[in-house]
């Protein structure tokens, strides 16, 4: 309530608390103090009590929990991070801005925050320098200082290409304008063509005079550039390919004010050193106040280097990047949180192993033999479906005779996904499967063996999940096959929408959606479609598949028999793949329906599911989750599909593409048109999918 301050409420000494406070003076005093904003003596007047009594009331109110002071978690985290960074690097000041925020970009928000502390850093008569880059421009644009006299802003280096909006010139002039300062440019490029050219320019009176300012700086404001391909140092035209190809700068991890530093902040000398005009790193370090403003994960390494090198007295950074730096140094934040709060969840992600038993019991002989033994067992179980191609248990083909001239379908990947992938070999499905070690791609020679088996003169289609290892091994195999005159086309499945952004489909991984893609390609090849047509349909099927996986417990490798990661008792991992790797996001455990809802929200959005659309559904166990729970998941899934007005053409529920013994499930939705639906409906006969 504005305007109540100082207003005499009642005559002193005559009053009881208003009715809404009952007889509780603590509550009343607290209300007046925290809500009405009165001072303690005003409250004393209002309550007819002495000021020390009011003080005691307020203290009691805190102690008894009537008043709780809470600081929002995100801000608290920022404060903790800032303290930890100050402590680690002996900073005078550190401001950590929450990384998550509405509206403006991260760089703009960090720039604004830095502008906000300028009044405490800059004083009348100061000379300050500013470097360049996106963050510096954001700072310069947001900066406001009124009534400071005789402030000078100097460009910290010579100029760069004018193609960038955040050039040294524009950062310096913008800052000077906004804080009412005089601007001193540097009338020379930051990098000149030769050492001679530099000496010549340094001899020019105007330039020499401008550079003089850099030797008497009170403050310097600077950013840091990584050396990643799109970083400022590249866009500024400093670091051309000719330079990169030599190893002059192989020690460098970033650049400050246009000069390179190694991981520990030591300057890295190279051919640019003697062609540089501007504030040297040595002089930078002599400036009394040195404000580094930086944000973004790609800058963890260069920021750390700058801190280690002692270039920074004041740091403005975002919270996620700050945490990345501290994690790199393995600093546990718990130490910076007051000890009375130890019950709170630790701020680090807590990857320490859970106490208690860590070895998982498994049916094993020698763990190294597990894949071969399992494949031998599978061939013995389903002789009508699969058989060894070359006598090994790792290259397996369909037992049934295949029509001459049929396009071959070769699938494969690591073991550990059973019944994938060998359960999907057979008539109307794949012709052969190459099997690697657990979660590891098969090698090229084995894939080649399968390729030769599958090829009947009309070419072979490879279908496998989009993983770095599989891509390399299958690509090598396809080169070898091409050398033997076998035509090979490749489909990399990318159905896992959690693994990469919507716009970046090619970077996604293949998971349970594989199954539908195998089916479509197998059906197309069984009706004697050409290689081109099989490829087109498989690609179309892959584009139609969308999957999200959720883990409740990690899996454990046969050789280690330890959980591949740890999940707290009430946590789940959202967006897991099928290799026991952690997912995209850790969150609190929810009920089955709420988990399905969360998955549906993302799947529906990704596939733009509308009323009237037709889908195929796969509710897949990741290994450890039993049928009964999969059916619970399917119940809610079908409710959500019905509510959206979509119809379910086909539903599969069970173990299709697993991740060893991971407790968890994935849901795949495939958008269908007539063409894809009819291929799914075609007969097939693999030991994991039979349809007549």
């Amino acid at each position, binding site marked *: 309530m504005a305007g109540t301050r100082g207003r005499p409420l009642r005559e002193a000494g005559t009053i009881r608390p208003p009715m809404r406070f009952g007889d509780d003076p603590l509550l009343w005093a607290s209300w007046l103090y925290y809500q009405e904003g009165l001072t303690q003596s005003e409250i004393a007047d209002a309550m007819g009590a002495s000021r020390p009594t009011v003080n005691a009331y307020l203290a009691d109110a805190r102690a008894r929990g009537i008043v709780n002071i809470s600081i929002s978690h995100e801000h608290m985290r920022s404060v903790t991070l800032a303290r930890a960074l100050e402590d680690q690097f002996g900073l005078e000041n550190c401001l950590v801005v929450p990384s998550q925020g509405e509206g403006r970009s991260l760089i703009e928000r960090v720039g604004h925050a830095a502008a906000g502390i300028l009044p405490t850093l800059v004083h009348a008569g100061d000379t300050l320098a500013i470097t360049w880059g996106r963050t510096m421009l954001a700072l310069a644009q947001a900066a406001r200082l009124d009534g400071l006299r005789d402030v000078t802003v100097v460009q910290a280096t010579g100029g760069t290409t004018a193609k960038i909006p955040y050039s040294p010139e524009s950062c310096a002039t913008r800052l000077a304008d906004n804080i009412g300062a005089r601007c001193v440019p540097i009338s020379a490029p930051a990098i000149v063509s030769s050492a001679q050219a530099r000496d010549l320019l340094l001899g020019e009176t105007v330039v020499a005079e401008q550079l003089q300012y850099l030797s008497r700086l009170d403050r310097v404001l600077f950013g840091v550039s990584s050396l990643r391909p799109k970083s400022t140092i590249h866009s500024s035209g400093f670091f051309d390919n000719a330079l990169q190809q030599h190893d002059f700068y192989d020690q460098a991890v970033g650049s400050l004010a246009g000069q390179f530093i190694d991981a520990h902040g030591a300057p890295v000398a190279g051919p640019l050193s003697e062609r540089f005009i501007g504030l040297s790193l040595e002089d930078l370090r002599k400036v009394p106040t040195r404000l580094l403003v930086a944000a973004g994960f790609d800058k963890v390494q260069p920021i750390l280097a700058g801190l280690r090198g002692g270039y920074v007295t004041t740091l403005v950074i975002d919270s996620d990047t700050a945490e*990345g730096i501290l994690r790199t140094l393995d600093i546990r934040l718990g130490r910076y949180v007051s000890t009375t709060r130890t019950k709170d969840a630790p701020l680090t992600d807590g990857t320490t192993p859970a106490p208690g038993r860590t070895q998982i019991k498994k049916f094993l002989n020698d763990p190294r033999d597990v894949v071969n033994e399992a494949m031998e067992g599978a061939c013995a179980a389903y002789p009508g479906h699969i058989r060894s191609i070359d006598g090994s248990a790792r290259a397996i083909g369909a037992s049934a005779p295949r029509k001459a001239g049929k396009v071959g379908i070769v699938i494969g990947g690591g073991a550990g996904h059973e019944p994938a992938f060998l359960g999907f070999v057979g008539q109307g499905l794949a012709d052969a499967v190459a099997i690697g070690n657990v979660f*590891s791609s098969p*090698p090229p*020679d084995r894939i080649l063996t399968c390729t030769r088996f599958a090829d009947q003169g009309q070419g072979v289609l490879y279908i496998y999940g989009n993983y770095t*290892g599989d891509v390399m091994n299958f690509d090598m195999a396809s080169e070898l096959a091409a050398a033997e005159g076998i035509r090979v086309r490749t489909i990399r499945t990318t159905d896992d929408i959690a693994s990469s952004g919507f716009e970046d489909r090619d970077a996604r*991984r293949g998971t349970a959606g594989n199954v539908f893609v195998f089916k479509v390609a197998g059906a197309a090849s069984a009706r004697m479609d050409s290689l081109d047509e099989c490829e087109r349909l498989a690609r179309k099927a892959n584009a139609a598949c969308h999957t999200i996986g959720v883990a409740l417990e990690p899996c454990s*490798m046969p*050789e*280690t028999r330890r959980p591949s990661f740890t999940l707290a008792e009430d946590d789940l991992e959202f967006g897991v793949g099928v*290799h026991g790797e952690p997912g995209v996001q850790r969150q609190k455990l929810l009920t089955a329906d709420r988990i399905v809802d969360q998955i549906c929200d993302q799947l529906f959005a990704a596939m733009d599911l509308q009323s009237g659309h037709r889908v195929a559904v796969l509710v897949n166990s990741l290994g450890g989750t039993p049928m009964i729970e999969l059916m619970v998941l399917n119940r809610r899934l079908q409710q959500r599909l019905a509510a959206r007005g979509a119809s379910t053409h086909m539903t599969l529920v069970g173990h299709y593409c697993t991740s060893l013994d991971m407790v968890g499930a994935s849901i795949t939705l495939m958008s269908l048109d007539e063409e894809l639906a009819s291929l799914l409906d075609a007969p097939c006969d693999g030991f994991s999918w039979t349809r007549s």
Partner: protein
Amino acid sequence: MTGIDAPFIADMFRLATVRLEGKRQALCQLDGEIGDGDHGISMANGFAAIDRMLRKRGPAAPPELMRLAAQAFLGEVGATVGPLYASAFLEAATCLEKNAPLTLDQLGLMLSACAEGIRKRGQAQPGDKTMLDVWLPASQAAQRAARAGLPASDIARQTCDAARNACAETAALMSARGRAARLQERSIGHLDPGAVSSVEVICAICDTVLERAS
């Protein structure tokens, strides 16, 4: 002074095999944090396969041994490291052929060839938090030390140090390749398992140089 000859290659692979076997569990655990937990298995089994092949196989020229090592490793593990190390060894074979006989202080040439093989096959950029972030700086350190005219033992020591330091730096990087890439910023603060195993391999090579140089 002996050079990088056939016994050298057998010794370096044997040493790497022993060390990777010792790191089998630790590498799996490290990989479990940001990958799928099989890295220790792939590396230990892959090098064990090379060692077995070398023991069976009689004497052969260094480039031939390197080619066989590539085949043995790839045939055993596939995976992601299979093609990468196979390409490294194949490139090294070419290097050994071109520069035969390679002397101990030319260690950097062989390491650079390995790094180039890894880069070409994996298409990773420096800073992507991969094994390349160890192989590149280590090979560059070896070349630098050689240019400075240092004796082979110092070259080996500096190379090994460079590998270790570069590996420690991978904690600051965000994964851009492989399965860890889906973790994005959650990968920061973890060492890259491929970088850690690369240190074992590189230091085994360096220690083989040290045994002979001193």
